[in-house]
């Protein structure tokens, strides 16, 4: 690159900038890692910002999506990951990838709105293309950040203001009253919960012994899919090509893969297990916070550990008067489904991050259980 060429580019950029009022005050959007301080505003992380009705992503951040995502009251989510220049995540077959210190992961929760900004739609589809997303007809709620510090991951939740221009740190969490509008027009008031820092750990401290915060979605099986963010590529392969993924990764074809829960070409069981994996297994694993229940909803679990004919331990009202976690062939007798279909805070699952029923997800689990053979033997000595 010659000096003249560089000067030419500088000139073009300057001229373009001069046409826009206030432009000279704007710094370029670029990620800034915070090892010690906990920024009060989202913009201090430099990963994304709302400006002129557009949500912009900083250059170098990678948006990503998951085969089957966690349900969060029908909120849409824009996820990004950024690692310091020249660094990459280390591949792991089952666990979350090991990201380098300095990594910033974001997840922005938003809805397409209905007749007012408090009416949010269950069937929105808006997403980002080429590093930007139009905010027209969109309400941004919160952006959560996972930052990989020397000591481990730290979690923060930033709540967007009314004007949708800035998001502020809410360590103690928040509740946002909204009305959900389903595709068939039914409406339902609900309280959208922004987690406090401990509640972040409630899901992300996937090992209840160490209580270290871990990403949940950034696992091979969730990321192993074609992605609109990398047209024509499998997401994992794209990450490898970009230099975002290092270590013992051969190709996406050889990596574990969860089904897309909505893809009816996939086997029913694979869709159901993918759904339970991403929605439940961060707690319901042998080492997770819900290990106290003895229920394991990781992909490999089976038998009573998976809930088959398994009596509840400390479910309280969560049993719904039903005998076992899963009664094969009988969804109406299965506690698992009851806990997905209730909104009672004492009984519902997941305990956090859901205030309305995911009707489509529940239907999937209902069909899966209904198709199982068997039933549970009556009580008594075998």
């Amino acid at each position, binding site marked *: 690159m010659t000096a003249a060429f560089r000067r030419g580019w500088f000139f073009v950029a300057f001229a373009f900038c001069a046409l826009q009022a206030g432009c000279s005050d704007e710094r370029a959007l670029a990620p800034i890692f915070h090892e010690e301080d906990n920024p009060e505003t989202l913009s201090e992380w430099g990963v994304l910002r709302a400006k002129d009705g557009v949500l912009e992503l900083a250059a170098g951040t990678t948006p990503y999506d998951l085969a089957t995502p966690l349900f969060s009251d029908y909120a849409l989510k824009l996820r990004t990951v950024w690692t310091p220049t020249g660094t990459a995540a280390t591949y792991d077959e089952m666990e979350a990838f090991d990201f380098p210190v300095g990594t910033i992961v974001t997840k922005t929760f938003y809805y397409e709105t209905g007749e007012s900004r408090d009416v949010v739609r269950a069937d929105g589809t808006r997403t980002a293309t080429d590093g930007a997303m139009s905010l027209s007809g969109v309400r941004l709620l919160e952006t959560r950040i996972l930052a990989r510090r020397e000591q481990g991951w730290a979690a923060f939740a930033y709540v967007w203001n009314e004007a949708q221009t800035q998001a502020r740190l809410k*360590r*103690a*969490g928040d*509740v946002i009253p909204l009305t959900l509008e389903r595709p068939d027009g039914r409406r339902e008031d609900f*309280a959208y*919960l922004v987690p*406090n*820092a*401990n*509640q972040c*750990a*409630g899901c992300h*401290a996937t090992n*209840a*012994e160490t*209580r270290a915060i871990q990403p949940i979605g950034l696992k091979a099986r969730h990321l192993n899919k074609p992605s609109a963010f990398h047209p024509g590529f499998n997401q994992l392969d794209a990450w490898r090509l970009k230099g975002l993924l290092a270590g013992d990764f051969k190709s996406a074809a050889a990596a574990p893969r969860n089904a897309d829960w909505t893809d009816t070409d996939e086997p029913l069981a694979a869709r159901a297990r993918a759904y339970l994996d991403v929605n439940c297994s961060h707690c319901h694993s*042998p080492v997770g*916070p819900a*290990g*106290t229940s*003895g229920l394991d909803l990781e992909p490999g679990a089976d*038998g*009573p*550990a998976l809930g*088959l*004919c*398994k*009596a*509840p*331990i*400390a*479910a*309280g*009202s*969560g*049993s*719904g*008067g*039903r*005998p*076992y*976690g899963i009664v094969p062939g009988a969804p109406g007798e299965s*506690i698992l489904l009851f806990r997905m279909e209730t909104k*009672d*805070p*004492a*009984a*519902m699952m997941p*305990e*956090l991050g859901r*205030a309305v029923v995911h009707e489509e997800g529940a239907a999937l689990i209902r069909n899966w259980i209904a198709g199982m053979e*068997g039933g*549970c*033997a*009556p*009580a*008594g*000595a*075998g």
Partner: protein
Amino acid sequence: MRSIRLLAGALALAACGEKGGEQAADFSYQETLQTQLLDARPGDVIEISAGTFHFDRSLSLAVDGVTIRGQGMDKTILSFRNQIAGAEGLLVTASDFVIEDLAIEDTKGDALKVTKGDNIVIRRVRTEWTGGPKTENGAYGIYPVQTTNVLLEGNVAIGASDAGIYVGQSRNVIVRGNRAERNVAGIEIENTFDADVYDNVATENTGGVLVFNMPNLSQPGARTRVFRNRIIDNNTKNFGHPGTAVANVPAGSGIIINANDQVEIFDNDIEGNGTASIIIASVFSSGLSQDGMTEDFDPYPESIFIYGNRMSGGGKKPDGLDLQALKVAKFGPLGALPDILWDGYVDPAKMENGALPDSLRICVRNDGAALLNLDAPNGFRNPQIATGAHDCALEKLPAVSLDGRLAEL
């Protein structure tokens, strides 16, 4: 009786009407306290002043070494009656934790849950559902689970739809001087090793004190001593949620041992429990499917030693048609079931020459108390008094001693 109740109900309605709509709850303290809990550092004492404070979502603490202190269980009240989110009132995932002198009321789920911590002290805390026993009440009042070195002392637990005081999957636990009333289970020790339960009062629950082992958990349990407690009139109709382990507890149960081993019950006052003073049962009697148990689970209660208790007035009004019919058939309409009921299941794999080894037996040396073998393995065909067959003694369990700083408490 009925007319008095109706009158009381009418008065309560009138009182409500006069109140004329409650004032909107003030949640201003919620963010303050939750932020204090987030910012706490080891060694901090978080003092909560006297008053009633309202919360609409769970509180949580994840920092080791913190003390939360109120001004008394009737003075500092954390009310969750307006709760909209969270499965408990206060969730603690931390060690070296002390909570004392406050009340947690009307949570949607559990009141106080402490999970995966060591060195836990919960004392002079009241957990209560203020509307009395109701199925829609939260499950547990005071609920340490997967904890080690735990002292629960001087607490009051009222109205839980499962257990007022519940210790699950823990080790080295002392539960003393507490009061549990009008819960489904008063005090429950489940899948726990080394628990001493003494000087407590359990009254007006469905079952007073439960020592259970449940299948499919990370650890079974053994070695619980229940002594010097007053277990009185636990006859409240079972209001637990069907499907839960306690939903099958008959009203009128003083103490129940289910599938747990090495349990010692002595020097208790057990009075007026309509079904039985003490019930000893296997998991086969708790209504669970065999398909839902892993192979390595031991469903039999073994090494049980009952001695020196003062039992009276039990078994006069058993819960459930089967036990009522049995009582009438064997002991007459004015009679009573014996103080101790046993379902009769014995592990055939452990038999030696037709009998259990001495160390695994159920032993009763209790003046005046009889044991009834219900003969459940044979479909209850031939229930028999079997006190003589259980006249034996076991080696006594050592006292639980708490470690570290808790040893001095």
